[in-house]
């Protein structure tokens, strides 16, 4: 055996293996859940090393609220505070759609950088890398919804219903985010690089969220556009959130929102999983 000048602080007597040497036939669901938590932890500590990301999903929504309240507020409603009563639930919904992009972007980054292969070479649940990513994203979602609400309350947003209504709206938006994440998972798997995922955000999510009744009531739009805006799930979810938080009908938009959420997941989850199998 040849030797070089490179000194190695190593011995051939490795410490006893940490891992039990008995080979297990499969991962138990509990282990899979624990692996999910570990992987979610990993995604969240990334933020500590890249504080800009925190800015991305914290400052951006705050800017949205400020911008729309003070720039449009006076023109659309009579005063910024009054406008906030109308727009706040929709702004939360719109922001939720943008935050779901992190799932796709992060997944794409893992695939293109090879982290995904490393994870898949480990004896962990096959679904853990994906569920860990989605779970971490739900934490980011919760954070940015809370942040938006705090800013909204400071600017003068008032709850028109009850705390229970607010909690229901929160849960509804979180559930929708969970289901919609599958769309961005698909984009993340199919896109060649993380920039392409971002491009999807701008070219698809942006117009779709704006073609809604988030910022202005449907009645102010041209007649031919109204059916499109009415059918847009962004409108429906905003209406449900508005009903739960401020005022207005709840039952119908709530039911339709849930149907949309489940339908989106039912279509995109299998597509995503298939695309993932094919890509990696």
């Amino acid at each position: 055996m040849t030797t070089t000048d490179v000194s190695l602080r190593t011995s051939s007597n490795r410490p006893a293996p940490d891992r039990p040497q008995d080979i297990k036939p499969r991962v138990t669901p509990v282990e899979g859940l624990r692996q999910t938590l570990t992987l979610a932890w990993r995604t969240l500590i990334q933020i500590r090393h890249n504080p800009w990301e925190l800015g991305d999903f914290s400052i951006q929504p705050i800017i949205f609220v400020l911008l729309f309240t003070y720039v449009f507020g006076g023109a659309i409603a009579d005063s910024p505070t009054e406008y906030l009563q109308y727009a706040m639930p929709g702004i939360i919904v719109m922001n939720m759609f943008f935050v779901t992009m992190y799932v796709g972007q992060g997944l794409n980054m893992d695939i293109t950088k090879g982290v995904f292969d490393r994870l898949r070479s480990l004896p962990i649940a096959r679904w853990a890398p994906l569920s860990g990513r989605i779970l971490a994203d739900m934490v980011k979602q919760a954070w940015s919804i809370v942040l938006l609400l705090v800013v909204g309350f400071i600017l003068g947003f008032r709850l028109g219903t009850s705390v229970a209504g607010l909690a229901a709206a929160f849960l509804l938006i979180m559930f929708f985010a969970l289901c919609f994440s599958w769309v961005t998972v698909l984009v993340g798997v199919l896109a060649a690089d993380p920039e392409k995922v971002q491009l999807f955000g701008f070219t698809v999510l942006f117009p779709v969220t704006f073609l809604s009744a988030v910022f202005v009531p449907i009645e102010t739009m041209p007649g031919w556009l109204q059916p499109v805006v009415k059918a847009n799930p962004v409108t429906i979810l905003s209406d449900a959130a508005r009903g739960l938080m401020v005022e207005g009908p709840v039952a119908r938009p709530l039911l339709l929102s849930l149907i949309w959420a489940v339908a989106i997941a039912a279509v995109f989850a299998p597509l995503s999983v298939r695309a993932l199998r094919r890509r990696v």
Partner: protein
Amino acid sequence: MSYAIQAEGLVKRFGETTALAGIDLTVPTGTVLGLLGPNGAGKTTAVRVLATLLSPDEGRATVGGYDVVEQGHQVRQLIGLTGQYASVDETLTGTENLVLIARLLGIPRDRAKARARDLLQEFRLDDAANRAVKTYSGGMRRRLDLAASLVGNPRILFLDEPTTGLDPVARLDMWDLVRLLVADGVTVLLTTQYLDEADELADDLVVIDHGKVIATGSPDHLKAQVGAQSLVVRPARAEHLEVVMSVVRDLAQVEPEVQGERVTAAVSDPALVPAVVRRLDDEGVILDELTLRSASLDEVFLTLTGHRAEEPEGERDKEGVSA
């Protein structure tokens, strides 16, 4: 003899491209197999199939006695993978990366941290333990990659081009680390495009090209087969090329090649050089250059396949990594 890795007739296609066209290989327990081939030969695809990341279209393979398709989870408990595409998270620190893997393997938090600390020290990364990996040098990065694949004490290790892109010092460093693992009894499957690397580390070689095995054997056996070295002779005057050709042909017993004003021939006996010098001197040929250099992988391929190794590009596409 027990085999850590056995593969029979592995075929993998990506659309029109056939990445593996029926690969057979066996790796006895505790040995190092070098999988040698140019970019796009199918090395990475072979590793990905054996590491359970890809399912083969045809053929079967066992790793540690477990079927890579049917018993992937068992296989994953035995292997470690370090490669171009199996990477650490560069936004995390070295410690965090190793703790992450240890936690995923079910090692409790305290022991996971201790394990990370030990490995980082062993791989001389303790000074950089709490720095993000993106600030690491190429050599440090590869050492961490290797450390990451050792967290679970694998008995079988896949190293996919462990030194590609490293400077010579970092390369020697990697080689030493691999030797230490082998001394511990770890079975290693190593892919490389470098003949010298395979020569240094591998007990046996499998040379593949276009997804097919084109040669197998020990490094010495293979070198003897292809001519370990190249003799290069350049006469001062072009009209002496013919004489040089005939002398080389006569002594080396192979048909030399002419490239520009140089005559080259694969030779396996270094004692040939003085003989060639004497003969050419007798013939009155003045030389500008006479060198004996190690055969490059390109020459090995030329000898084995009759064509040159392809340009180093397109492996990613061929291996079906990009969408």
